[in-house]
Each structure stands twice: as C-alpha cells, then as structure tokens.
C-alpha cells in the first residue's frame, strides 16, 4: 500500500479519471448516461454527478446516490429549505460511512470517496431532484485499481541486481528480469533507459506475476551510471511503481601514452619515464615491459579520476639499446583489455672497446720479423668519431715506413721487432666519453741479444784477480742457456761451464787471469728456443794500467780570484783514480796551486788567486799505475776575463794555419804521449811495489807531471792515429817511468794496460788489432791508447762507462803539477771510454 498522496494530487487524478460514456439504447431500458470512473486502492476517488439545473430559475433540492440496484441510497444530499452551503448530508454507514462526502459546489459536483477499497467498485447512480425540472439520473461505473507491487530486478542467476555490487564489463550483454507481482488490472511492465522506453514487451503469468525480460547487448562507456528503470503501471491515476538500476560498468582503458620518449638516453643514468593511461574504470593496472620481460617494482603509480600516471625509474643499460620499452595498461576485470605504447630505446653509452690480436696469430709464437695485427671491436652508440691506439700507454701513429698501419678498426705492425712488444690498447670516443679496450700484450720471441748497454765492456784486472762478469741478455722466452768463450789473438776457446753459472737470462762468469795469455776477449752466448745469440756479449779483460787522459776540460766558472774547472774522466786503467789540477803561473810556468779530487766527474775549485794573474791549467787522472797524459787549458787570466779554452785559441787561426798547426801538434803530442807512457810505467813499477794499497805519492805525481816538457795544444779531431801517437809518447819522462813488464808488479796489484779490447770496444772485434799473447804490452798499450783516442772522436760511443764500486770522493790537492794538457773539446761527454775495475782491489787511489 502506498502512502496517501497529497489531496490536490488525488483530485487531479480523479478529474482525469472520468470517462463519460453515454449510451442511448432506444427501446431499451438502459438509457441512463453512464460515466466510467477509476479509483486507486487506498486513495481518493470522486464520482461525478452533474447537478446543474437546466434552467437558471430552477434549483436542486435533493441528490441521492445509489449503488447497483440497491433501493436504499448510500448517500443523500438534501437542501430542501436550506441554503446551498448547508446541505443535509447523510452517508450510509454500511457503504461509505464517513469515507464519502458530496461536494455539491464543485463542477461537476462529485461524491468524494476516501481510502478506496476494492469492494467500492461497481455501478453507482445519482439521482438529482430539481425544484422544477425533471429528475436527472446519472450512472457512474466505478472501477478500483489495485496497484502492482514494486518491481524486483533479477539477473540471469536470479540475484537481486539492485542489491548486488558487481559491475558489468564493457561490451558484455546485460540480461535483466523485472518481476512485478499483482496489480488489478494487470500492469504494463516497461524498461526505460533514462527516459526512453527500450523494452515494453511483458508477459503476464498465471501466477499473477508480470515479467519483462530485458536483453541489453554490448553495454558501453556511454552507459556508465545510466539509469535502467523498470516501471510497472496499471493506471495513470497513480505514479508507477519503479525500480532503478544504475549501471556500473568496468571500462577498458582508452589511451596509453609514454609521455617522455626521449630521442636518446645515456646508459647508467636514471630517468623517470612517465606513462599516462585514461579511460579505465576502475583504475588501470599499468605494467612496464622491456622486450617482453616485465619490470617489477620499479614504477610508482598515481591515479586520479579516470587517469593513471605511472612513473618508471629507468636506468638504461648498454644492452637496452634498441629494446622496446612497453607501457601496458589494462583493466584486470576485463579480459583482453590491455593496450600498449612502445618506446624504442636509443641508449647512448661510452664505447665498449674490445681488442684482440689477429685471430690467425698465435700470440705465443710471434717472432721478430713477423707481421702482427690487432682488431679493435667497438660497440658504441652514437658512433665513435675517433679511434686511437696505444702501445704501452703511448699513442701510436700511422707510419708506413715503420710498418705501422692503422686502418679502420685494425692495427697492423709489419715485421715487428722486439721493441714492439708490450701492451696494446685501443680507445674509441663518442659524445658519451672515451672507452679504452682491454690491454693485449704482444710478446715477441727473439733469440738472446745483449742487454742494452751491457755488452762490450772493458774490464781491467790484475793477475790472479777474480773478476765476475755478468752477461745479461734480453731474450724471449727468457729461458736462456749460456756458454762462454775466451778469445785471445784469434784463438777461441770455450770456457768450461764450471766457471760460470746461469740464471734466467743472466750468466755470471768468475774469471781469474793468471797470465798475460789469459787477458783477452770473453764472449758470452745465450741460446733460447728461438735460436742462438748471433752477436755475443763481449767483455774485454785488460791488465790494469794508467788512467786515460781527462777529456773535455773547461773553466766552467771564473771570478776575480777563483776558478772552477770541470772535466770528463776516461778509463781509469783498471784501478781507482783521482784527478789532479795544477795551476802554473804564466809566463814563469811555476806551479802555484795543486788541487786533487776523487770526485767523479772531476771538478775543481781554486780560490784566493791574485787578481790579474795568468795561469795555465794542467789536468791529470792518477791511479796506482801512474798519471795520465796531461790536459792543458792555456792562459787563464783572472780579473773577469772570459775563459780560455784550447778550442777558442785555435779559433783565432786561419784555416790553413790551423791545419798546419794541428798537424804538427798532433805529431808532437804523439811523440810526447809515447814517451809519457814509457815514463809512467817505469815510475809506477817502482812506486807501487811496496804495498798492495800503496798510496799514490802526490809529490811524485807532481814531479813527474811537471817534467812533461812539451805540452801540446792540438786538435785531436784532426789528428791521424799515427800522428796522434807521437806527441803522447814523446815525453822522455814517461818513457823512463814506463814499466811495461806486468810481471814486476805483484800479482796482488796488477797494473792494467789499456788492452786491445779497448779498441775493439769501438769497432767490431774482428777489426780490432789483437794484442798477441806474450808480446811486450808496452807498445801495444801505447798503440791502443792512441787508437783509443783516435776512435774516441771518430766513432759515436755506444758503450757506457762503468765503475764497479770504486769511490771517487772529494778532491785532494796533490801538489802543483806542470804539464801541458791536450784540450779535447771535441770529445763529447758521452765519448768517455768505458773502464771497469774490480772494486775490491783498489779503494782509494790518492790518500
């Protein structure tokens, strides 16, 4: 039962519910005008009755209402003798009782019935008595409408859809059953979508239920929250019974877009990639995929309205280049609802460089002379714009002449030498940076060769002195076997292995010469798997002797009363040497100062000289065997004068004069030199006999030196070997002093002559003039010496000077010595002869 409607509504309903159907059946009894009136159960109804008199002067006196054929009226309206406004009303208590009220003032007049009951239905007659006019009888066919029950909406599973929270999926078909119980007359059951009828076909079942089954195919986005209304109505007197179903629909996502598709990204940098999807309801599930592999737990999702924004934290890796990054949005509730947007990653990265040696090369089998190539594989995005090669961290440049060929991605080394061994790398650069390859080590196998600057050394040794000769070779593989030979006067003999022991690429020979015959060239040969050493490492073992002349002497600094002089030392003759400076006052040639030093390279400083004095400087090297040839610096004048060198004085001459002078000077110096040698040997023999460590007498040196009468100023560079020899040997002192017999010297303290090996230092051994065993060494020594001097300036020295532990400490003044020294400025500093003596024999030469 409905709640009672407001009265004004009921009135209007009643008014519209009247249908007057006047039937005149002539010849029939029923000719009473009849109107059809409907009332709704429980509501008000009004039965019309026109009481208006036909004539203005007439008046109603009575209205009686009858039902069907009842004799007794159910309602009377009596205004006989009354005013219109105060009728006498009576309602039969057995019919309407107080539910009825006649409104005579209405037009038409109506009998109002409250709270209509089903039994109220029937034919009513109203009889209107007028004062004058004939009585009027009117009939009302009153029917009572019983509203239907409220509809119930079921789904196909007969669940009450209005109580079910289960959205439909977009695109699915909606089947809804609307059931209405009861209703008189049977109701029409209609489906509305919003206000539009979409299904008005219904079925009336015999059990009193009226059904309308709605099939609503393919619900779409436009139907979201649409109102589906099932309406049951059997009258327009009362509002229809309705049930509303608001469509809740799961919607597919419509769009998905990766918002930040950058043209390129850099590897290992962090990017926030945003993906927006719209249209899904409920919110879409956004997943990220990289080449069909899902990226989990790397994105954050934000949802608002129908939009979902997913932010992926992406750190592209190098291998991501070219991969597809996919943002997929789907509604989990709807199968196959996923849509995707893809982004092809363009990952830029520092070049990845890989270096390999040529594939057909066996890295362990590369020998000198082979061709080698490397291939540099570069993986880069963007493309590299530079490819650089390195060998042991130094850049390599294209040089076809050296057999270094750089091509696009490869390096070719033609005919490699062992210097090509080492670590190779290539480096590529692009906008992201530089990438350097792995180092590839190139190993080059080669037969042993003497370790650099270690071959062809000159050693001085006394008889019975044991020298250790270290033969170091470079070889690859470094596993080397050695053998040693001794060569004297062209005879070559192998040394028994017990004399030497070998370790890796070093062999050490302990050699003890016992006779003159046992001085000579010791050769060391290494051999490894590649082959035998072609050129042996040579060690020239000579008998210890006088040191060689100082070279390259000059006044390095000069002040009013001081001088600073430097020289370059030469071979020490196999014994410890000291260096002597004598200042000879000019023109008296008296020795004024005498300064000695063992410092190496030798240098002297002389102070407190009287201003304006002029001096000549004589310079010597001195060891236990005696004093070397003098080196003279002519005419040094104090008082701020420019320094004088032998060379500078020679520069004053004309070329012709100079050459003539040089020729004569060389001749003179050769003779002088020879004499000096003879003298020194003689002197040394006497002085060094007493003790093994006999100190060199400074005075003696001084005397001897001063006796050299013919100091020579010469240009050694221009001198021929024969000419050079003369002046040097000319000194009678030296001839006297010379003691060529080594035997005289006790075996403990051997004098070491400059051997032929010294010469061969400068030239191939075969070309050297061998000293013959048993021959008097004196002339040999002198000759060698001269040879040496000649070679000194003619051949660029590759050998180096080695002093094995001999100390050269401090300058010691050994007294003033007068001696002319040959200034050999042409002899480069590097051209010093190599002299090695055993250290344990001679410690200090001048104490």
């Amino acid at each position, binding site marked *: 039962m409905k709640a009672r409607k407001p009265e004004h509504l009921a009135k209007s309903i009643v008014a519209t519910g009247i249908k007057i159907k006047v039937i005149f059946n002539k010849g029939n*009894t029923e000719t009473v005008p009849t109107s059809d009136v409907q009332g709704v159960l429980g509501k008000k109804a009004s039965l019309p009755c026109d009481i208006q008199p036909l004539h203005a002067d007439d008046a109603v006196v009575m209205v009686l209402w009858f039902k069907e054929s009842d004799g*007794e*009226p159910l309602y*009377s309206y009596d205004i006989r003798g009354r005013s219109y406004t105060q009728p*006498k009303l*009576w309602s039969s208590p057995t019919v309407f009782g107080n539910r009825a009220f006649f409104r005579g003032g209405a037009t038409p007049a109506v009998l109002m019935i409250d709270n209509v009951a089903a039994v109220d239905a029937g034919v009513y007659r109203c009889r209107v008595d007028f004062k004058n006019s004939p*009585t009027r009888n009117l009939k009302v066919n009153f029917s009572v409408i019983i509203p239907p029950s409220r509809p119930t909406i079921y789904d196909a599973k007969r669940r009450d859809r209005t109580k079910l929270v289960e959205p439909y999926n977009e695109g699915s078909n909606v089947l809804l059953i609307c059931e209405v119980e009861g209703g008189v007359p049977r109701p029409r059951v209609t489906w509305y979508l919003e206000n539009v009828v979409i299904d008005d076909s219904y079925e009336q079942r015999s059990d009193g239920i009226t059904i309308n089954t709605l099939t609503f195919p393919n619900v779409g986005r436009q139907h979201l929250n649409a109102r589906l209304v099932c309406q049951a109505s059997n009258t327009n007197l009362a509002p229809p019974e309705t049930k509303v179903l608001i469509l809740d629909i799961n919607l597919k996502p419509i769009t998905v877009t990766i918002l930040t598709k950058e043209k390129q990204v850099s590897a290992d940098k962090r990017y926030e990639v945003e993906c927006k999807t719209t249209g899904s309801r409920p919110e879409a599930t956004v997943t990220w995929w990289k080449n069909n592999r899902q990226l989990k737990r790397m994105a954050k999702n934000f949802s608002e309205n129908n939009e979902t924004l997913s932010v992926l934290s992406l750190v592209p890796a190098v291998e991501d280049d070219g991969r597809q990054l996919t943002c997929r949005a789907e509604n989990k509730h709807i199968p196959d609802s996923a849509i995707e947007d893809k982004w092809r990653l363009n990952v830029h990265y520092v070049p990845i460089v890989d270096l390999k040696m040529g594939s057909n090369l066996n890295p362990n089998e590369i020998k000198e002379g082979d061709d080698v190539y490397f291939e540099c594989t570069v993986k880069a995005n963007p493309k590299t714009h530079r490819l650089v090669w390195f060998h042991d961290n130094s850049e390599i440049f294209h040089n076809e002449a050296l057999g270094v060929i750089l091509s696009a991605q490869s390096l070719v080394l033609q005919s490699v030498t062992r210097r090509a061994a080492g670590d190779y790398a290539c480096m590529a650069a692009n906008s992201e940076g530089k990438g350097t390859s792995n180092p590839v080590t190139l190993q080059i196998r080669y037969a042993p060769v003497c370790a650099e600057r270690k071959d062809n050394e000159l050693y001085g040794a006394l008889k019975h002195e044991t020298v250790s000769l270290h033969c170091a070779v470079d070889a690859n593989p470094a596993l080397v076997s050695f053998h040693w030979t001794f060569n004297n006067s062209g005879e070559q003999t192998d040394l028994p292995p017990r004399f030497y022991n070998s370790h890796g690429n070093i062999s050490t020979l302990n050699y003890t010469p016992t006779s003159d015959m046992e001085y000579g060239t010791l050769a060391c040969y290494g051999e490894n798997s590649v082959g035998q050493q072609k050129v042996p490492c040579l060690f020239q073992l000579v008998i210890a002797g006088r040191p060689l002349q100082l070279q390259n002497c000059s006044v390095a600094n000069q002040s009013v009363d001081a001088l600073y002089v430097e020289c370059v030392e030469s071979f020490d003759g196999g014994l410890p040497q000291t260096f002597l400076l004598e200042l000879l006052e000019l023109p008296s040639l008296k020795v004024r100062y005498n300064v000695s030093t063992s410092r190496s390279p030798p240098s002297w400083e002389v102070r407190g000289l009287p201003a304006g004095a002029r001096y000549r400087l004589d310079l010597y090297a001195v060891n236990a065997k005696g004093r070397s040839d003098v080196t003279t610096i002519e005419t040094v004048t104090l008082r701020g004068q420019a320094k004088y060198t032998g060379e500078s004085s020679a520069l004053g001459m004309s070329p012709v004069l100079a050459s003539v002078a040089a020729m004569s000077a060389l001749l003179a110096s050769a003779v002088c030199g020879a004499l000096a040698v003879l003298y020194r040997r003689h002197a040394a023999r006497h002085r060094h006999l007493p003790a093994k460590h006999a100190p060199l007498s400074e005075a003696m040196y001084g005397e001897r030196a001063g006796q050299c009468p013919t100091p020579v100023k010469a240009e050694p560079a221009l001198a021929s070997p024969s000419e050079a020899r003369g002046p040097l040997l000319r000194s009678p002192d030296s001839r006297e002093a010379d003691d060529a017999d080594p035997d005289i010297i006790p075996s403990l303290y051997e004098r070491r002559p400059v051997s032929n090996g010294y010469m061969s230092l400068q030239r191939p051994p075969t070309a050297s003039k061998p000293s013959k065993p048993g021959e008097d060494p004196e002339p040999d020594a002198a000759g060698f010496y001269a040879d040496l001097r000649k070679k000194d300036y003619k051949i660029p020295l590759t050998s180096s000077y080695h002093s094995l532990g001999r100390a050269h400490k401090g300058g010691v003044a050994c007294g003033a010595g007068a001696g002319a020294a040959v200034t050999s400025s042409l002899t480069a500093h590097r051209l010093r002869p190599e002299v090695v003596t055993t250290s344990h024999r001679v410690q200090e030469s001048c104490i």
Partner: protein
Amino acid sequence: MFITFAIISLLIKESMLLRIVRVAVPSYKVRGQPAQLDCDYELGDDILYSVKWYRDNEEFYRYMPKFDPPKHAYKLDGIKVDLLKSDDRRVILHPVTLKSTGQYRCEVSAEAPSFASAAGEGRMEVIYLPREGPRITGNQQENRRGDSMFLNCTSGRSYPAAILSWDIDGEKVTDPALLVEYPPIQHQHGLVSTALGLRVPTGRTMQVRCTARVAPSWREGSEAVVGNSQLADSKEAMLLVKNSSGGCTLNVMLLTLSFIQLLSSLMQLET
C-alpha cells in the same frame, strides 16, 4: 383476451420498509385509446417523499406531497397526462399515440433520513391497424416466353409492419426462389407498409392469394395472444389466373374475393 403483465415486486427484507407492490403498464394500446399506469406500493413506517414516473428514464410525472401542487407532469413527446385522474398511485395517459411506446417506470422514495427507494417498470407498445387490404399488382412483360409471370403484393400502412404471405390454390408459397422480398416502406407518423413479390409459374389456371397480417408478434409468445385479441388484423387479396391454350396473352383478373377484417378486442386484465 387480457394480456397479463408481469408484476415486479421488490421484496425488501423488512416489511417495515418501503416496497413496491405492483407496477402495471399495459403492453399494447391501439392508437387513440387512453392508458392507465398503476404503481402500487407499501410505505411501511416511512413517509412518502416522492412518486416519480419515467418513460425511458425521462420523468413525465411526479407526486411529491410536500410540493405544492404535489402533482406535476412534464411534457414529453407522446405523453399526455390526465392530471385530474392521476394521483400518487396511478397515471392516466390520454390518448396514446404511436410515440407513447416505451419503458415506463415508477420510482417511489421515502422521506428522510433513509430516502429508501423502490421502483417497478413495464413496457407499453402502441399499434396502428391497416385501414385497407393488400393490393396485388402484375407485370405482363415479365416473361415473354409466357412460362411464368411476376406479381407484387403491397400491404396497407400500419404499425408495426404487416407480414405478407402468398398462397397458390390454398397452398402457402415457401420456396424462396419464387419469393422476392423488399425493404419496408416508411410513411408519415411512423407507419410502415411492406411488399412481397411472387413468380407465378403459368400453364394452368390457378388462384393466387396474398395475406397481410398485422400483430405485435415481436414479443415472445405474442402470436397466441394476438390470435385472441382485438390487436390482430388480417386482410387478403385474391387473383384468378386463367391460362388460354397456345396463346400468350394473359388475362389477369384482379378480384377482391373477400375482405376480412378481424378486429381484435383489447383485453385489459386487472388482476
């Protein structure tokens, strides 16, 4: 003969209440005669409020004691109330016309408070009997071969319409192939005449008769009633058909052999 009218009595549960005892309305009246309508009721404990007479739901007479005058007649076509002779239990109509035909109802109502009402009704028909007999007309052109001829019989004006029939040599023609019916012809004052055609086979001499009968036969069982009453009327026309052998000429002699008029007497039964 008296026609007995149905007595409608509404038996109300209690004798104390108003009830109709009898409403008497004559079923038939010949035009021009008076008619008396009776309405007999018992008031019981009630006081009379009104007696109303309706013809076809239109009030033409009322008797209301509290009104002055209590008797009042309304003008209705075909109704002429003799107010002097009418009272609270009867109404005299004089004379009746054809338009007086209708359903007459008497409604009696008691005074306040119940205004209990009761009603009874009856139908009255007014008839008009023909003044002239039927006429037979022929048409010689009907059949040139001369094997049949066609006759029409037309009744005189009456209400209700006369019913025509043919008989040949005393035998009623029922073969519909020989009969031709026509729609009734309307005349003034609601009078009606009818016609019926007959195909007459020739070749022999015969007596052809047309009978026109007027009776209120439209009510169930009225045939019998009519036979005994003054309300029935039957008139005939006779024709002798002679056949001249071999000839195709037809002599038609129209003869009115007999003219019988039966006047039915109107019986008014007052039980």
